[in-house]
């Protein structure tokens, strides 16, 4: 605790309304009895500029070094008041607030009870204020280059958008050419542009940009460093090189796989996968015998994949257009909750594609060079249908790219149950990894259609830009502190930190201790609560502050 505490308490009666429930001058009189409370004022509108100006003057005139504001919820104006006291020359973290509006006078209509509670709340805030500590800001230089891993459409788009934002990008692709799945797809319905056209346009843009550096046949080996200053080791053939970058975007896409085990039948000349079909559609002139009837089946191995249903719709329409003949799609549920998908489905219907829905997986067998499909059509009272077709196209499941396992362990980014990259939290941070500065875009972490993947490319580009827009990042230095003398280097905090914001560091090359990475730290305080040596102190939420708050427990109730 600071010896020369000079507390200033600023009460706000919210336009005089709170004064109706209690006598603010009585509260003021009580507060003035505390020896370290230097100054108490009553305001009616502390949230407005004028009152804040007066507050600044009071702080300066009275040499106040800890500020207590008893007003509305800190969720509303805490940041405001932090700026106000900062402008008055007090570190912005030396502020403690008592929520006497939302959590007191507004919630408790009984005036006496509310007054007692308000007094207790102000007491708590004063107690806490005595233990406040300043947090200084620091500037950290960052490398403004971005590394994009994966040269599929998502990676390409991210690189182009980064370049639009004036960030230099290295785009690495493990194959010899860019394009990824675009090289395999026969069409991009519901998008009318062909994959070849789209790729050509994008590649032209990439080629024109000076600030996009493309490395094909290259793989990421390892990454060291932290957000703002990563060093990535990249292998090309037998050569290894290091690229420094401030952010990394994973857009490694997905692979597809047919699992005869799950589906219960094998592939043959007449039973092919969606990707095999795409090959045939792409080189339709080489197809010698045009199948008269084709069935496409989906939802047998994965009921919830949008990509697999979308391929069935795309290719059904593709077959109709290229070969004609009878085309039938079998599925459980039509997944049409995406841009243009309902329309694509209707186009299929209009072109004569038949749809059959099932609840129980159809039985598939081969008979006289044809494929026999026995299915209960749920739309016609579960009637047993037997279909014979020349060609059956079966769905494939999306599987993670081969290197995700190794990359995830070398970079310590998480994987989900299927082995795709795991976002930090799907709805809170949909494209962030569990490491600050590393992002995921596209199908390497979720089942997305082309439009969604492009949206993500755009979003991650902006995230990277926001991080690296300035050459120096401003951070709150040591807002969480680890006492190197107390740290036992037990690794508990390093393992527990949800943001990978604690690293190993040597103090004077002698003792290894844990150290907070200010750039990645989100100030949650989990580390402080798990530390068995009580070596960690979040300056805004220290044990002393928290314990001080219930020091007065019971006294005012």
């Amino acid at each position, binding site marked *: 605790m600071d010896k020369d505490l000079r507390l200033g308490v600023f009460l706000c009666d919210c336009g005089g309304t709170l004064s109706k429930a209690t006598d603010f001058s009585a509260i003021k009189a009580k507060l003035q009895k505390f020896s370290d409370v230097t100054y108490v004022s009553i305001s009616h509108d502390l949230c407005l500029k004028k009152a804040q100006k007066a507050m600044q003057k009071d702080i300066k005139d009275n040499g106040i070094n800890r500020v207590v504001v008893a007003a509305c919820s800190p969720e509303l104006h805490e940041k405001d008041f932090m700026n106000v006291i900062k402008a008055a020359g007090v570190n912005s973290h030396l502020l403690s607030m008592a929520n006497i509006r939302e959590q007191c006078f507004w919630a408790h209509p009984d005036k006496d009870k509310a007054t007692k509670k308000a007094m207790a709340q102000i007491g708590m805030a004063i107690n806490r204020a005595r233990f406040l500590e300043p947090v200084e800001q620091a500037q950290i230089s960052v490398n403004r280059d971005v590394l994009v891993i994966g040269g599929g459409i998502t990676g390409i788009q991210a690189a182009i958008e980064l370049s639009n934002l004036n960030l230099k990008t290295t785009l690495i692709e493990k194959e010899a050419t860019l394009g990824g799945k675009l090289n395999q797809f026969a069409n991009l319905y519901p998008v009318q542009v062909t994959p070849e056209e789209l790729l050509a346009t994008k590649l032209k843009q990439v080629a024109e940009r000076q600030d996009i550096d493309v490395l094909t046949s290259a793989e990421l080996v390892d990454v060291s460093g932290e957000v703002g200053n990563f060093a990535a080791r990249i292998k090309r053939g037998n050569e290894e090189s290091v690229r420094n970058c401030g952010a990394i975007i994973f857009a490694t896409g997905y692979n597809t796989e047919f699992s005869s085990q799950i589906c219960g039948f094998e592939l043959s000349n007449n039973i092919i996968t969606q990707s095999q079909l795409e090959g045939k559609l792409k080189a339709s002139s080489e197809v010698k015998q045009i199948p008269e009837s084709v069935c496409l089946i989906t939802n047998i191995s994965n009921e919830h994949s949008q990509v697999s249903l979308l391929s069935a719709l795309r290719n059904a329409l593709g077959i109709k257009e290229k070969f004609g003949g009878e085309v039938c799609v079998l599925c459980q549920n039509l997944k049409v909750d995406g841009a243009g998908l309902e329309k694509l489905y209707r186009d299929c219907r209009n072109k004569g594609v038949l749809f059959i829905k099932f609840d129980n997986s159809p039985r598939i067998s081969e008979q006289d060079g044809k494929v026999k499909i026995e299915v209960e059509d749920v739309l016609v009272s579960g009637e047993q249908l037997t279909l014979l077709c020349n060609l059956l196209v079966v769905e494939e499941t999306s599987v993670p790219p081969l290197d995700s396992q190794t990359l995830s362990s070398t970079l310590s980014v998480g994987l989900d149950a299927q082995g795709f990259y795991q976002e930090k939290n799907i709805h809170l941070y949909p494209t962030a990894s569990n490491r600050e500065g590393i992002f995921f875009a596209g199908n390497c972490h979720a089942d997305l259609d082309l439009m969604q993947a492009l949206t993500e490319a755009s979003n991650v580009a902006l995230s990277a830009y926001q991080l690296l827009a300035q050459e120096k990042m401003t951070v709150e230095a040591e807002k969480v502190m680890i006492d190197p003398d107390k740290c*036992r280097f*037990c690794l*508990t905090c390093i393992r*527990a930190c949800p943001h990978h914001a604690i690293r190993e560091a040597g103090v004077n090359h002698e003792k290894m201790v844990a150290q907070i990475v200010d750039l990645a730290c989100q100030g949650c305080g989990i580390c402080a609560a798990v*530390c*068995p*040596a*009580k070596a960690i102190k979040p300056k805004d939420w220290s044990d002393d502050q928290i314990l001080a708050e219930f020091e007065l427990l019971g006294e005012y109730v």
Partner: protein
Amino acid sequence: MIVAERKPLEDIKEMIAGYKKILLVGCGTCVTICWAGGEKEVAVLSSQLKLASKKDGNELVILEDTIERQCEKELVEVLKDKVQQVDAVLSLACGVGVQTIAEMFPDTPAYPALNTTFMGMPEGEGIWVETCRACGDCFLDRTGGVCPIVRCAKGLLNGPCGGTNNGKCEVDPEKDCAWTLIYRRLEQQGRLDAMRKYYPPRNFQAVIRPGKVEALQA
């Protein structure tokens, strides 16, 4: 690392019954790391004892300290002043720590607040498993770095029993069969021959207790 566990509060209360003022001493090494006796656990126990004494209506004064290592006399010496003020010392360290304190301050009773359980390594957050029994005759060269004395439920030295089940132990199906691990490791290293050699049962009684190590030079 030495792994320990807190004793039940009931046992601890019984030990210190009747004392008016006690000192809780944590140890900054192994037991801090295994969450049993660091500064935090000292505070937790202290809080529990205070609550208990308030509840029972007796006045117990508690001093707290956590030192670098309790197994060194020189490092324990810093407690001198505090020990003189109290009726008893409650040590949150391994058995070695308790004994060092007892020896350094023979006038004041020292009590263990922990049960020293084993030597082991962390398996996950907050989970430690026994990996070494300090038998005094290390066998790991022959078993690919997996100790069958500890990690095999039956301590077998010459291959698995008949109860190995898909790599799991018949005694506890949650645990890996040590001999399956040994086989896999040796196979990986191309040293399966090591398994051909027979080792007679070991006579643990022959190990001289208490053990003593005298290193020839510093």
